[in-house]
């Protein structure tokens, strides 16, 4: 018996004991009808070959291990960024359980969201009654200031009309007539969670600016000097939004963060559960129409939102998740150009420190090859950063990236001599990536938690940057934007590189001559 009260063995030790090993071997041999081990080995090796890669890339229907989620997740992410706003997803309830779990596993925070719990009868008769009851219940129980509605694919397939349903619900007294219920249709079979972000953000701005679904006068834009900022779907929202605020404040710019969920995903443990915390106030959301310009940090999260804003007369500027020196330069220079404010010395100093750090360490990154996958904007930002570090983003893959995105990535490659042998893969998944890593190996892989399966199978060390990160804690509290964020990304990459060098040089009397104390 291996278990003991003194030293309690966890699963990873317990089952390695001889009793269990014997039991598992026996189970396999006797009852699992296992494949011949030689055959398993043969297929395992075959799956590493160029021939397999070709078949794998010829796939037309099957998706294996995609790096994207569905629209409503993005809509929920947006909703909680507004003051005391409850996300309400119209459709089946299971989806909502999934979004909440997904967000909680990443942020290690509560994630509040309700569903209209549609079932079979709603599939036949439509979900109007679910909306009527749902809004009334949510309003009474959770006392939100606003309820932001989106849809699961069930409601979309049966064609429920949110605008009409919300109107009827108000007539039936579910919520007061003047109560804010912005909405967005978020079909899961179109785009991904970044599309959902876009639709939900657009829905909320449209609601406040364009007459609240015909129940109020449209707002008349009276331009002021403020700047709106939209972060996009971002696993680092807690650290990033704070960093962005810091930059705005250093520059003396008046700003509105639209969809500021940096507090709700970072509440303290102090004896009180805050279902809502922080967020863009509804007044700010309405007044954002008067801003001078709106800046989107992630273009593909705001493809529909920005044109809406532009139509209201504002300048709109979008970035692709800028990471590092050049990207952040462009961001702060754009701020300066739009506002006429000078970039203060304090920011130049932060920049200098990041350049200093890169100069100190670039020898360890220079010429290294990386594979990157993630959301389209993140991939663009990281690829550009690697190039400025003298590294090669050899494979860049986004399951939710399209042709337009691929062209942009190619342009980034073309901008640097280090981009010469790099390739972009729009619409591919992590099983494609697996083939790439076997047939064209790289030194490091950058991706979210699911990348650990690629690390296990291909031996490519994983640097965890992206969403979701389930198996490392608190990364979301540190920014990846701004010069300080660039520093965090640099250090994250360096830590892995050094760990790998040490791991590869630590065999006594074999390789440990290189087990250097100074690197």
């Amino acid at each position, binding site marked *: 018996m*291996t*278990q*003991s*009260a*003194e030293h309690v063995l*966890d*699963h990873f030790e*317990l089952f390695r004991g001889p009793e269990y090993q014997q*039991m*598992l071997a026996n189970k*396999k041999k006797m*009852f699992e009808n296992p494949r011949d081990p030689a055959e398993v080995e043969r*297929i395992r090796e075959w799956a590493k070959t160029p021939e*397999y890669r070709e078949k794998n890339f010829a*796939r*037309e*229907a*099957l*998706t*294996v*291990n*995609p790096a994207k*989620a*569905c629209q*409503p*997740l993005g809509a929920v992410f947006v909703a909680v960024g507004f003051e005391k706003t409850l996300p309400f997803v119209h459709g*089946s*309830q299971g*989806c909502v*359980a*999934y979004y909440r*779990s997904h967000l909680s596993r990443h942020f290690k925070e509560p994630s509040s969201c*309700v*569903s209209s*719990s*549609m*079932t079979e009868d709603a*599939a036949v008769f439509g979900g109007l009654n679910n909306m009527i*009851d749902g*809004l009334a*219940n*949510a309003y009474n*129980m959770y006392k939100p200031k606003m309820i932001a509605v989106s849809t*699961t*694919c*069930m409601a979309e*397939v049966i064609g429920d009309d949110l605008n009409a349903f919300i109107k009827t619900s108000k007539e039936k007294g579910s919520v007061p007539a003047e109560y804010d219920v912005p909405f967005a249709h978020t*079909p*899961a*079979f*179109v785009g991904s969670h970044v599309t959902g972000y876009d639709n939900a953000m657009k829905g909320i701005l449209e609601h406040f600016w364009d007459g609240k679904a015909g129940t109020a006068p449209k707002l008349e834009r009276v331009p002021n000097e403020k700047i709106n900022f939209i972060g996009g779907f971002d696993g680092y929202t807690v650290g990033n939004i704070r960093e962005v605020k810091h930059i705005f404040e250093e520059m003396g710019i008046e700003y509105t963060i639209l969809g500021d969920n940096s507090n709700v995903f970072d*509440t*303290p*443990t*102090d*004896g009180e*559960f*805050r*279902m809502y915390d922080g967020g863009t106030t509804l007044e700010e959301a309405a007044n954002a129409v008067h801003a001078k310009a709106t800046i989107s940090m992630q273009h593909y999260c705001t493809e529909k939102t920005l044109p809406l804003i532009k139509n209201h007369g504002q300048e709109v500027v979008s970035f692709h998740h800028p990471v590092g020196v050049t990207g952040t330069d462009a961001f702060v220079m754009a701020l300066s150009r739009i506002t006429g404010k000078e970039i203060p010395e304090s920011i130049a100093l932060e920049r200098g420190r990041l350049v200093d750090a890169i100069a100190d360490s670039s020898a360890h990154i220079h010429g290294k090859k990386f594979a990157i996958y993630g959301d389209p904007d993140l991939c663009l930002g990281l690829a550009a950063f690697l190039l400025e570090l003298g590294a090669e983003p050899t494979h860049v893959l986004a399951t939710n990236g399209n042709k337009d995105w691929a062209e942009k990535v190619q342009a980034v490659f073309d901008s640097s001599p280090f981009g010469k042998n790099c390739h972009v893969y729009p619409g591919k998944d992590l099983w494609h990536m697996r083939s790439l890593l076997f047939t064209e190996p790289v030194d490091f892989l950058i991706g979210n938690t699911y990348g650990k399966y690629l690390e296990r*199978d291909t031996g490519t060390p994983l640097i965890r940057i992206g969403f979701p990160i389930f198996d490392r804690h608190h990364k979301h509290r540190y920014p990846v934007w701004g010069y300080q964020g660039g520093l965090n990304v640099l250090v994250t990459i360096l830590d892995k590189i050094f760990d790998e060098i040490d791991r590869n040089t630590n065999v006594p009397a074999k390789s440990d001559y290189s087990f250097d104390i100074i690197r």
Partner: protein
Amino acid sequence: MSVIEKQSVAEIKARNKELIAEVLKVYPEKTAKRRAKHLNVHENGKSDCGVKSNIKSIPGVMTIRGCAYAGSKGVVWGPIKDMIHISHGPVGCGQYSWAARRNYYIGTTGIDTFVTMQFTSDFQEKDIVFGGDKKLAKIMDEIQELFPLNNGITVQSECPIGLIGDDIEAVSKVKSKEYDGKTIVPVRCEGFRGVSQSLGHHIANDAIRDWVFDKLPADAAPRFEPSDYDVAIIGDYNIGGDAWSSRILLEEMGLRVIAQWSGDGSLAELEATPKAKLNVLHCYRSMNYISRHMEEKYNIPWCEYNFFGPSKIAESLRKIASYFDDKIKEGAERVIAKYQPLMDAVIAKYRPRLEGKTVMLFVGGLRPRHVIGAYEDLGMEVVGTGYEFGHNDDYQRTAQHYVKDGTLIYDDVTGYEFEKFVEKVQPDLVGSGIKEKYVFQKMGVPFRQMHSWDYSGPYHGYDGFAIFARDMDMAINSPVWKMAKAPWKQAPKPLLQAAE
């Protein structure tokens, strides 16, 4: 925190009744009426817990429940390791449930086993408009080409499938024929069916009956020589290795486990199960259907058991042994005796630290009752419990065998109710899911996830109990909870607050 100890049962009952009345005040009238039927205070001697269950969740209240797809793909089918389970529909459902349930298994992932992978048809608008059957057929071809060692395929339907009129049964039949009778199982577990995960369990059970059992050639020779001591473990999903720390005990007492349903299970094991002499059933809720079917059709008796905590384990080992001869009965006694010193040591170490602590639970369809004994072995008391998707037979079992007089019962609890109950009852520990975890930790209440074992486990069996005890101790006695209130803010009588 245990205010409860000093109160009499009558006082507790009065307090709990008041509490229920209070939470109901928040609802609109119609909703309050409906929710009232799901909340109760248990009365000793009653045959059930006096709550309604397995009925639709109310829109907008923040139910904790999931859907039928979660019950089929997530619970029943997903862990079958040598089959490929297609999440059929848009990308979301499969993505959120990808590898999240910790169904441990041994195998070469991507080559001969596939549990921690996400296979999806990633429906696009055109698939919704024109139907997805052609795509599904092509997916099966691609699976055959790229994953040639798979032993079967299941189609796990997501919401749209049943709404757009796809015929996944026809596709499955055609492809099965094309691939020499390959096992291909269409499962109609669309998320809008039923009221929770529960119907998904049932549908998945039926799919095994119809597409695995009923396809077995009647005269197929078994792959192994049958014995008098063959049993199948039913309803253990091997979360953190639960089925393994259970299996070892059954084998040590002299039984032979010929199948695991479904944690670390394989198609061959499903197919062999009709040869078992006894089905031992852990999760009654999710697999009673197939157990009853095997009883009717193959005359296999089934026996519910509980491997949480030494008292219930010993009771269960004896109960299982009672279906067999003296050799097995002696085997059971031998196993109980063998582990007694370990159990004594675990209890000696942890009971003094946990004695008298109170727990509130809210889990799926089994653990809200099954873990109570394990807590009691540690001197702890469960003061409130409820099921996410239990039925009345679960509440009967709970009332008759598990809960104490005056226990607060809450079926399909809403976020609001749970928060209020915990705030007022002030238990020393809450055991529930990931969606609840951080809510209560923010309130300063120790918490353990009782679906995923908070990434620990196993909790089943004797080896698992040592881990269970250690985990409960580390949750409750962590120094962090003393720091939740800033010292300069310590009120004389701390009052936990929830969001208003």
